[in-house]
């Protein structure tokens, strides 16, 4: 029970990371290796606004998120859109290049020192009595859980019931047909990148009190988010959420029963096993369509 609750706590952050990865991949077909690092950079922006320029925390966070939106849209427009017709691997290489560049730039600007961002909310932690053990859940963890839930449902309804959402789904299913409907597909891609990157930034800012702000702060989360996405079938939004929560719980049990050192390795083992036996993921579609 304890592992379950702690697992869901970690998992909701994985789910948040996975959600953005999946939105970008599903809409534009690009697996963004720089995804976590883009969030890291935004976390640094938030940190700088907060610690150097004395912004109130909330304003600093909003600045960081806005930065992420712009960074995502510019990346799509100027780095990826021009080479859309080339090949998938060309786009992968670009995102890898972004990863290196962002890491180097962050090191150059903010140096090696780990920086700290405070919790969004503090206060007395929640204490859950499980009979044998007491479980301590900080307010920040609770906030992450609730925020993830709100964002997940919000995203889901937005995509399902609004015109922009319809344009996003149409573009992701058939780019050319979407163009022929008069949908500005480039704008839709920019939207997906802006929104997706903002989710990475939010995850980084929420994780920052624990991971500290550091050029590699999002390394683990990127892998865990990727695993969550693969678990969910990579193109399914509910899949990303279920995958994230599941991974969180699995990691907790592995940490408890085998060794805490294996926690991150489990993510990679899951990716390998799943790709071998069920590449469509746990919620992926296996139904065949008529052509």
């Amino acid at each position, binding site marked *: 029970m304890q592992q379950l609750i702690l697992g869901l706590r970690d998992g909701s952050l994985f789910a948040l990371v996975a959600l953005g990865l999946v939105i970008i991949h599903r809409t534009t077909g690009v697996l963004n290796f720089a995804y976590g690092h883009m969030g890291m950079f935004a976390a640094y922006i938030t940190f700088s606004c907060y610690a150097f320029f004395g912004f109130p925390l909330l304003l600093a966070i909003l600045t960081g998120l806005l930065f992420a939106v712009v960074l995502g849209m510019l990346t799509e427009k100027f780095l990826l859109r021009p080479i859309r017709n080339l090949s998938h691997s060309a786009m992968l290489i670009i995102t890898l290049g972004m990863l290196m560049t962002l890491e180097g730039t962050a090191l150059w600007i903010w140096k090696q020192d780990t920086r700290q961002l405070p919790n969004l909310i503090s206060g007395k932690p929640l204490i859950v009595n499980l009979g044998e053990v007491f479980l301590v859940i900080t307010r920040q963890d609770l906030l992450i859980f609730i925020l993830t839930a709100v964002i997940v449902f919000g995203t889901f309804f937005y995509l399902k019931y609004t015109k922009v959402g*319809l344009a996003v789904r149409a573009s992701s*299913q*058939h780019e*050319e047909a979407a*163009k*022929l*409907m008069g949908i500005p597909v480039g704008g839709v891609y920019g939207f997906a990148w802006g929104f997706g990157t903002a989710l990475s930034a939010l995850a980084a800012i929420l994780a920052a009190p624990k991971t500290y702000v550091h050029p590699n702060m999002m390394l683990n989360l990127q892998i865990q988010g990727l695993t969550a996405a693969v678990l969910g079938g990579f193109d399914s939004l509910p899949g990303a959420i279920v995958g994230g929560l599941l991974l969180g719980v699995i990691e907790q049990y592995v940490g408890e029963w085998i060794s805490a050192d294996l926690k991150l390795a489990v993510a990679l083992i899951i990716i390998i096993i799943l790709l071998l036996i069920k590449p469509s993921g746990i919620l992926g579609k296996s139904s065949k*369509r008529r052509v």
Partner: protein
Amino acid sequence: MLKLTDVKLKYGYVEALKGITLEIKEGTITSLLGANGAGKSTTLRAVSGLNHIYDGEISFMGEAIHNRSTDYIVKQGIIHCPEGRKLFPDLSVYENLLAGAYVIQDKERVKENIQRVYELFPILSDRRKQMAGTLSGGEQQMLAVGRSLMADPKLLMLDEPSLGLAPIIFEQIFDTLIELKKSGTTIFLVEQNANAALHISDYAYIIEVGKIPLEGPASELLKNDKVKQKYLGG
């Protein structure tokens, strides 16, 4: 209404259109006929801006559109119903129609248009919640045509709407085109089935390897010996 003047287009090094000149008059059905690979689909793709031409001019109602983006061209009222249906497979029938009306701002108008498509193809109304990818071939074609009507086209360009259809559905779709013409929609039809196309068209162009060797009123082309031999099966 639509004018192509000496339009040239390349795919890489391959010259697909070698100077196409044609005109679609308002209120007519005009066909572009030819064999596979002659450049029929490419001509439509050039008009809707999916591929850009390197020489010549395309103008719609007096405005040059060949350097414009597809979404701009769609907003001007040119709707291209592409070859091979190209539906959104994981959107429902209803959502596919809704996507077709993307450029229409007026919600009432969208509702009316959906009703109109359901009246035209009642089977789509029965299947409105079904995913488009699960429809039969004929139903998919109806949806493709229905979807292209959603944006109130001034000029409707259809690429091989008869491909792979059972005769009864084929007739239904062609009847629909005649109805559309009566209601004032101009139609640019690309077809391999030259016989059927000529029977509903006012004017037609024959395309061969990126050029137009022959054109004329459809009734005359039906009698033309060359056309008979090559495209009407003797």
